[in-house]
C-alpha cells in the first residue's frame, strides 16, 4: 500500500543569479511502514524534496513548479501541493501525520524552552490534551527513546543534553503524534559513530513499534545499507537510480551509483586504490543540457550530451536513467 507518491515534482528557486532547478522532475513512492533511503551529495536536491513534502519550502524564492505529492490516508488521497502551506489542512498534517527530524539537533531545538515544553507543544496542538496529560505523554516519549531519568530531563534545556540525547529528544518530539511518515534528513551525520549506531538502532525499533514509514535522507551509503528497504539515488535534482537496497548495492546500474560505490573505502572489502569520480558536480546555474552526469561519466556517448534520459525499468523492479540501457 503506498503512503506517499511523488509524481513529476519540480521545485525551483528564483535567485538574483538565475533559476536553480533544485528538484527537477522527481518520481518515487513510499510504501506504508517501509523505509525509503534517499542518497546523494550536497546540492542534489534530496533535502528540498523533503521540504516540498512538508510544505516548508520558502516561497519566494522557492516555488513548486509542477508535480503532485499524493498522500494516502484513511482511504483518501490528498495532493499536498494543492494546499496552502500555511493553511489549516497542511498545519493539521505537518508535525502530526508527517513529522521531520533534522541533521543538527542543537539548531533545530529552541534553546530557550525546555525539552518537555517543545514536545508538549505538538501534543497539545494536535492531540488536544491538557497540559498535565501532555507532560505525562512527553515523559513517556522520552522514556521510549531511551533517555535516562525522563521525569528530570523533561524540565531541562537543550544545552544540558549531549548531541546523541538531543537527537533522541528530536525523535521523541517527531513521534509524539504517531505520524504515518517520518522524514529524517541526515539525522546522524553530526553524531559520533558509536552514538550514531545507538540512534539508528533506536529508529529501527521505533519504526516497528509505531508502524511509521521513514524517508531517510543521507549522503552516507553505509547508513543507507543498514536502514533502507528501497533506495533512490539523486544527482542534480533528479533520480538517477532506484530499486531495493540489495539491488542498488549489489548490482548498481547507473554510472553515478557505480562511481560512488567505487570511490568509498569500505570495511567490507579492501581496495588497493580508490576510483574517484572525475571532476565535480556542475554549477547549479550551468546544468548540462543532456544528462547531468555526462561530463563526469566514463561511459558518456554522443546522445548523452543533448538529451536527458528518462528513468526507466532496466531490470525487474530496478529503474535507472541512463542511455546505456535504452
Amino acid at each position, binding site marked *: 500500500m503506498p503512503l506517499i507518491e511523488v509524481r513529476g515534482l519540480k521545485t525551483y528557486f528564483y535567485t538574483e543569479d538565475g533559476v536553480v532547478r533544485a528538484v527537477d522532475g522527481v518520481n518515487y513512492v513510499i510504501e506504508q511502514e517501509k523505509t525509503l533511503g534517499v542518497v546523494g551529495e550536497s546540492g542534489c536536491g534530496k533535502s528540498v524534496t523533503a521540504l516540498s513534502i512538508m510544505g516548508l519550502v520558502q516561497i519566494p524564492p522557492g516555488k513548486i513548479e509542477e508535480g503532485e505529492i499524493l498522500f494516502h490516508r484513511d482511504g483518501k488521497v490528498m495532493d499536498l501541493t494543492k494546499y496552502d502551506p500555511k493553511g489549516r489542512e497542511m498545519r493539521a498534517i505537518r508535525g502530526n501525520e508527517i513529522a521531520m527530524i533534522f541533521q543538527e539537533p542543537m539548531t533545530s531545538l529552541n534553546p530557550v524552552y525546555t525539552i518537555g515544553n517543545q514536545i508538549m507543544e505538538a501534543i497539545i496542538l494536535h492531540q488536544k490534551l491538557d497540559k498535565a496529560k501532555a507532560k505525562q505523554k512527553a515523559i513517556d516519549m522520552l522514556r521510549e527513546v531511551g533517555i535516562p531519568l525522563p521525569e528530570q530531563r523533561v524540565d531541562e534545556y537543550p544545552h544540558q543534553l549531549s548531541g546523541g540525547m538531543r537527537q533522541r529528544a528530536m525523535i521523541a518530539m517527531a513521534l509524539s503524534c504517531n505520524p504515518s511518515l517520518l522524514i529524517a534528513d541526515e539525522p546522524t551525520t553530526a553524531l559520533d559513530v558509536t552514538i550514531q549506531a545507538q540512534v539508528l538502532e533506536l529508529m529501527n525499533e521505533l519504526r516497528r513499534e509505531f508502524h511509521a514509514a521513514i524517508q531517510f535522507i543521507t549522503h552516507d551509503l553505509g547508513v543507507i545499507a543498514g536502514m533502507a528497504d528501497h533506495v533512490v539515488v539523486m544527482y542534480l535534482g533528479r533520480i538517477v537510480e532506484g530499486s531495493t537496497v*540489495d539491488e542498488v548495492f549489489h548490482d548498481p546500474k547507473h554510472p553515478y551509483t557505480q562511481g560512488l560505490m567505487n570511490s568509498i573505502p*569500505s570495511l567490507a572489502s579492501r581496495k588497493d586504490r580508490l576510483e*574517484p569520480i572525475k571532476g565535480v558536480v556542475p554549477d547549479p546555474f550551468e546544468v548540462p543540457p543532456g544528462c547531468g552526469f555526462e561530463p563526469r561519466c566514463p561511459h558518456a556517448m554522443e546522445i548523452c550530451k543533448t538529451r536527458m534520459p528518462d528513468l526507466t525499468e532496466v531490470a525487474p523492479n530496478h529503474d535507472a536513467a541512463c542511455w546505456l540501457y535504452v
Partner: protein
Amino acid sequence: MASDNILLDVKGLVKYFPVRKGVFRRTVAHVKAVDNVDMFIPEGETLGLVGESGCGKTTAGRSILRLIEPTAGDIVFRSKKLAPGGEESVEIDVAKVGRKELKALRREMQIIFQDPYSSLNPRMTVGAIVGEPLLVHGMAKGAEREDRVKALLAAVGLKPDHMKRYPHEFSGGQRQRIGVARALALDPQLIICDEPVSALDVSIQAQVINLLEDLQGEFGLTYLFIAHDLSVVRHISTRVAVMYLGKIAELAQTEELFTNPKHPYTEALMSAVPVPDPAWSVERILLEGDVPSPVAPPSGCYFHPRCRYAKDICKTDEPAYRDLGDLHFATCHFADSLDLQPIKSEE
C-alpha cells in the same frame, strides 16, 4: 624502539587545559585532553589516529607541531635540515627547542587542516597562499618563487594559471588541494593531516585520498592521519592508533588491528561503522551512554563504565599501555584473554 628509521617518536605526551573560575580566574580543574600518549612513526609510513570527538586526537596532532604548547612529554623528531655538517640527520626534541630552531623545524613538519573554507585566507590569491611559506622561510624569491608555486600546483593537480585566482573561486576538493600544496611548499618530511577529507563530498574524498597517497610515494612523505572515519583510516594507514579520552586504547598494524582487536573499545568502534553492504553481518556492539567528560574521567580504566567486559579491577586500577607482542599495543587489563569480534573483509 627497534627500528632506526623512526622519524617521529612521541613519549608521554600530555596536554592539560586549565578550567578557570571566579574573579581571580583560579584554576579549579583540568581538561585532560591528551593524557600520556606514546607513539612513533617510521619514515615513509602513515599512522592513522582515530577516535570520537573530544578524544584528543586533534590536540595531540597540534601539540606535536607545538601549535599548542604541550604540558609534558618528549617529541623526538629526526631532522635532516638541522643536522650538523657530515651527519645525515639529528634527533631533536621538538618539545624542548627554542623559537629559532622551532621555526627551522617547521620546514620539516607541516599540517593540512580539516576545513578547506576557513583555512585559506579569502583575501590572498592562491599563488600568495602557496608561496607564503617560501617567503616566510626565505627560501625563494621573485621568478624562482613563482616557478616553485607553479610546480607545486601541478603536483596537486591544479593548473599554473590558478595562481592568480582567489579561494572562493574553487570547489571544496580543489581548496583542499591548495592546502596540500601549501603544506608541500617547504619540502617537509612529516605532514599531519587533520581530518583532511571529512568536509568533502564522497565522490571528491577519493580524489584527495588518492592524491595524498601519490604524493607520499613521490616525495617519501610520512603522515600522521587524524580522522574519525575508520574506513578511510584503514584504507590509508600502515598502522592505526585508537584514542579514547586522551589516551591510546590500542595501536597496531592496520590489518592486525582490524582482524585481531585487543581492546573492547576498538571492537565496539569497528562494529558501529556503517558498511555500504546490506549483507554485512557484523554484530553491532552498542555502547551504553556517552563519552565521559575529560575534566573528571572515571577511575581505573577510563573505558570501564561503558565496557561490557569490565571487572572489579577495571574500576580501581588503571591499565598500563603495553606491548602484547609484535608492536601491538593495548591499554586493557584483559587484552591477552579477551576474544573480540574481528572485521573480516574480502580482498
